[in-house]
């Protein structure tokens, strides 16, 4: 504690870069709103050309889940490093904080989809009058009142903790009081534990219960690892956009290198969990379990194999060398590949169960909606960035972050 106080007084108000407040320009708002408009038009085209309502709802659900996950991981990025008392991430932790602003927005959209017809289209178990013997056994967990109670618990917890972490971080920036630093660590610890449980249970609720007859004990981790990779890739993409706009000049190759390591390592972690789930089901060969992969390999074979190539083979081979993790011209294409890849991963988790092979496909509706959601997400993140200085100059580890150096 004494050491921390000395460090705080020594490293306060050190000279910072010129561009430390983010301004949301008209041009940026126009681009984001145009992207949202593309999304709305795509959905309208979908309705006009007779794309089934189920497919559109499943598509909205996919994007809701994907971008809420990004928000959660943005906050996780801040929280997990605060607990570990690491210093290097301080220079870019504002991006993570800004991403967490999307959690309530995504939550609202998700609630709207569930309330206005989404439940019956997405979840077979909501058709209470014709449940079979297996689903009747699961009614204690899979019933609508409890589903909404869990929904409220997840989002109130996430939104509250995100608010507290952002507020404490802003207060810490104001006067650099060590009290706020300790508070930040406390809230972060609560958030990480809360997310560890709720990321699994929410994945059961919103993804695994689509195929309500099937279950996998690894599913929660699998989805969390997918969220982690795509979230960290999103941080890199936002960092790149900000750097192109002339901000974040204090973030250098050393920080980018560590983000590259995260993308590389977590891609392997995702592949490990994918394989752990796949191989046990393949080996045991029990019909009620293999039906899940049978559907996906038989009718969604392109997405199924593309998923492995985009999310494992490409990041693994391209990011293996040290130097490729340190340059944006390799890191950004890989981040975009991972962004598309994990969207496809969610696609093959959701679509076979909800839409079925006859109707499912990737067309104007899917691509347009994703562009729309990306625009909304970016708009919210940019709005979040304007809320506080881009440079956390009073953070006790800010100086350490500037002088950070990594070899391998």
């Amino acid at each position: 504690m004494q050491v921390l106080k000395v460090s705080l007084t020594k490293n306060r108000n050190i000279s910072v870069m010129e561009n430390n407040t983010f301004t949301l320009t008209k041009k940026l708002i126009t681009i984001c709103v145009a992207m949202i408009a593309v999304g709305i038009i795509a959905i309208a085209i979908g309705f006009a050309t007779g794309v089934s309502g189920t497919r559109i709802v499943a598509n909205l659900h996919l994007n809701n889940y994907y971008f809420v996950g990004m928000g959660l991981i943005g906050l996780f990025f801040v929280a997990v490093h605060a607990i570990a008392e690491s210093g290097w991430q301080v220079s870019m932790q504002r991006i993570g904080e800004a991403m967490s602003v999307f959690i309530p927005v995504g939550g609202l959209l998700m609630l709207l989809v569930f309330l206005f017809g989404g439940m019956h289209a997405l979840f077979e178990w909501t058709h209470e009058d014709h449940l079979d013997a297996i689903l009747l056994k699961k009614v204690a967990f899979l019933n609508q009142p409890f589903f909404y109670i869990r929904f409220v618990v997840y989002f109130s917890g996430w939104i509250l903790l995100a608010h507290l972490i952002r507020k404490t971080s802003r207060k810490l920036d104001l006067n650099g009081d060590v009290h706020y630093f300790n508070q930040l660590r406390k809230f972060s610890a609560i958030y990480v534990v809360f997310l560890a449980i709720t990321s699994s249970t929410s994945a059961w609720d919103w993804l695994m219960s689509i195929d309500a007859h099937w279950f996998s004990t690894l599913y929660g981790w699998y989805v969390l690892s997918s969220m982690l990779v795509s979230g960290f890739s999103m941080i890199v993409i936002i960092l790149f956009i900000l750097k192109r706009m002339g901000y974040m000049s204090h973030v250098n190759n050393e920080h980018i290198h560590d983000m590259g390591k995260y993308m590389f390592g977590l891609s392997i972690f995702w592949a490990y969990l994918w394989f752990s789930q796949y191989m046990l089901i393949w080996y045991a060969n029990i019909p009620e379990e293999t039906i899940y992969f049978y559907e996906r390999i038989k009718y969604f074979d392109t997405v199924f194999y593309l998923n492995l190539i985009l999310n494992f083979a490409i990041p693994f081979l391209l990011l293996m060398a040290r130097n490729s993790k340190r340059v944006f011209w390799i890191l950004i294409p890989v981040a975009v590949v991972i962004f598309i890849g994990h969207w496809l991963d969610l696609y093959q988790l959701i679509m076979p169960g909800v839409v079925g092979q006859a109707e499912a496909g990737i067309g104007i509706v899917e691509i347009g909606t994703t562009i729309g959601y990306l625009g909304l997400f970016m708009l919210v993140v940019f709005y979040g960035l304007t809320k506080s200085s881009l440079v956390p100059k009073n953070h006790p580890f800010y100086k350490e972050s500037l002088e950070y150096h990594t070899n391998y």
Partner: protein
Amino acid sequence: MNKYITAYYTDENDLIKGVKQIREKGHNILDVFTPFPVHGLDVALGMRRSRLTRVAFGGGAVGAIVGFGFQAWVFTKAYPLNFGGKPYLSVPSFIPVTFELAVLLAAFSMVIAFFIHFKLGPGAKTVVYDERCTDDRFLVLIDAENAEADEVKKIEKALSDAGAEGITYKE
């Protein structure tokens, strides 16, 4: 190596400054012994990036190919057994062993390459240039095998200018 000069520092920041000064004067530092890893010392010594990663990649690739190839040969040619009606060449079941062997050979190849390059390993003779470097001193070692008497003087001068202590010339 029979002739060499050693000198020590007591602080790692002085060490890095001193090493830079000595190298600026054109004297080649053979090695530095430190009680803990010093950040930035490899840059100050002008060392190339380690090529151990290439050895690791080679070892890993060999391990993966051998692991997969051996299993494929055993389960299709040498001793085909039917497991649960699966095809003989069933790739998913080969992946764990392939992965493990890739990791194992990558690790082994790195350790062996490291031992060979630095002449370490079982039976290697340990040379202690100065006993103080086994405790808390940062020892700088300069090769003086072919140095004339006046050049040794020059090196010693450069060392003391750079703030090194305990300069000794050993034959």
